[in-house]
């Protein structure tokens, strides 16, 4: 333990020696606050255009995109699962019953990787979605669950409410401010690689198939 402390002191000492006189906490905070942030913070795009923009980005990533009205979520989920040939999906805790259609099996999952690997897919909600980058942000929260759930199954169906969609990355961060310590994953399309001759290949280790169901007012 003594040795570990030596390295800590050595590094911090070396940094201080290199930088000279330290500033007070207040001075550091003041300097930080003065950093100019002239980049675009908010979008100001009206709702319909925003959703269309989000859809367009998702499609570019080869994600499937669907829409449903608030009272039509379950029906749309049934339609998607039928099209995908899925008998049912695994769920995190807290998925509302009105998302789940009859005739399919939905089970709240355990968190064992080997078990999840055998499931046909997972259904989650999200915390926020970013139109400009086609991203959905998942956190360890109700209807989203632990990170493993949206990782190991090969198929992910994500329900995004229209009011969860923002245009810009900074708008998303404004919404994440209160929950920044939760495990968080930004998902932008299915997993991909371009490591071989810069050819984008969909589906390496994460889910190879991603569908996004956007829920709009009636």
């Amino acid at each position, binding site marked *: 333990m003594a040795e*570990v402390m030596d*390295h800590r002191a*050595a*590094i911090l000492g*070396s*940094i201080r*020696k*290199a*930088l000279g006189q*330290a500033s007070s*906490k207040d001075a*550091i905070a003041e*300097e*930080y606050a003065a*950093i*100019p*942030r*002239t*980049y*675009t913070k908010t979008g100001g795009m009206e709702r319909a255009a925003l959703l269309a923009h989000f859809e367009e*980005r998702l499609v570019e*990533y080869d994600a499937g995109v669907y829409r449903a009205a608030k009272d039509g979520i379950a029906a749309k989920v049934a339609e998607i699962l039928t099209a995908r040939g899925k008998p049912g999906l695994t769920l995190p805790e807290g998925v509302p019953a009105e998302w789940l259609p009859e005739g399919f099996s939905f089970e709240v999952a355990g968190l064992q*990787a*080997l078990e999840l*690997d055998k499931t046909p897919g997972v259904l989650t909600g999200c915390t926020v979605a*970013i139109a*400009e*980058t*086609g991203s959905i942000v998942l956190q*360890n929260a109700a209807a989203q669950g*632990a*990170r*493993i759930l949206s*990782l190991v199954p090969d198929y992910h169906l994500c329900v995004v409410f229209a009011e969860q969609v923002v245009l810009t*990355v*900074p708008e*998303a*961060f404004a919404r*994440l401010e209160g929950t*920044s*310590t939760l*495990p968080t*994953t*930004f*998902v*932008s*399309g299915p*997993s*991909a*690689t*371009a*490591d*071989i*001759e*810069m*050819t984008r*290949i969909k*589906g*390496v*280790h994460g889910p190879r198939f991603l569908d996004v169901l956007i829920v709009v007012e009636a």
Partner: protein
Amino acid sequence: MSGVQTQDGTQWNRQDFPEAAKEILEQSQTRKNVQHATNVIQGKRNKVVAELPDWEDLREAGAQIKAHTLRHLDHYLAEFEANCTAAGGHVHWASDAAEANRIILGLVQQHDAKEVIKIKTMTSEEVGLNATLEANGIAPIETDLAELIVQMGKDRPSHFVAPALHVNRAQVRAIFQKEMHLPDLGDRPEDLATAARTYLREKYLRIKVAISGGNFLIADSGGMCIVESEGNGRMCLTLPDVLISIVGIEKVIPSFQDLEVFLQTLPRSATGERMNPYNSTWCGVHPGDGPQEFHVVLLDNGRSPILADKEARQTLQCIRCAACLNACPVYHQTGGHAYESVYAGPIGAILTPQLHSMKEGRSLPYASSLCGACYQVCPVKINIPEVLIHLRGKVVQEDQATLAGKFSLWNIGMQAAAFLFADAGRLGLAERVGAVGQKVLVSKNGFIEWMPLMLGGWTQTRDLKALPAQSFRQWWAKEKAPSAAAKNGRVSHG
């Protein structure tokens, strides 16, 4: 040169850049692969950067956040440590590569792990972690597709975003066929990626210790952020019982909110995507989600002394997007291996010699035509050409302090040129002497080095037109000066 250990136990810094580059320039397949890859990424990058009207504002904010953090680095590291620890993480400090290896090996052995899964990390490469693990009977398994290709091919990374961009699909196929025992493997990129998925999936589900680097350490939340594409990162960050992250001390940022800048600039600069497929952030340990034991090793290894140099400190602003490699016309020709360094390209040319207190990689600051393409694309505005010149200044001053350096042809030539440039009379005389006696001068040792040595270096592939009989100043003195003087009343004494 003493050389630096790499992950596979071979040495970096075996030879200077010009010699290493010459070897690569003879490998036409490698050059073709590198040019293809850099052209593709560069094209994608330019397209998605042009989409953002506030790109310059984002660069400026990113640069200032990083510069601010570096000015108060100890403050932010201590804040990170306190918050990470409070969230259940263990923070370790490693002054050098040996300490980092000792800490990580100890943790792996504590868990009796014979295998570890790894996310691509340049810091691991920097400290030679794989060689340490292997020497102790532990198999490190790279999970990034490109790193797996490099590891299986017993090769070295040549680019820190796409480490295998110097090999093509046929070469990848040959490596996988042999190492994964798949004689019938096809050579479509899909086939190769599927082979890697199958090969690694079993390992993700079984191996209990993972090792990663880190893109950002977040001081105010005590969290970390890792940016990736394939999902191999998420596998390593989520499935094992134990996660060990080795991260350079310069990777800390003040606030989670600062990611709103870097998560725009990094993906667009690195892979030319609006957002890479996966970004993960987490703080310490979260019950029921991910590894229940988390260690961060904060690595100095030559970084902190760089802070003392105000000109060069900006080197540590780097977020490792590799945009400068893709934009660099020198890198286009040579790829990464010519730099003989973990960190290649323009940023490597300034980072590597500084990490080694200017004792290694001394030819690297000269491995640039100073064309400025690197600075133009840098998302945190590191003025790489300016730092290159600054480091050249250090090399020259250090060389001049030695007897051999003082009497080197370069130094003598430069001093002679400076002597000529200090006075127009001398310069004019030198020009006249040059015009008359250039053939004689060219064959000599280069006393007026700004001419003869240039000819010498040139003549392999280029001709240089001879000095004209009359210089401009001679022409002016003869044709224009008399009338100009008469008109202006200005006395010409050229």
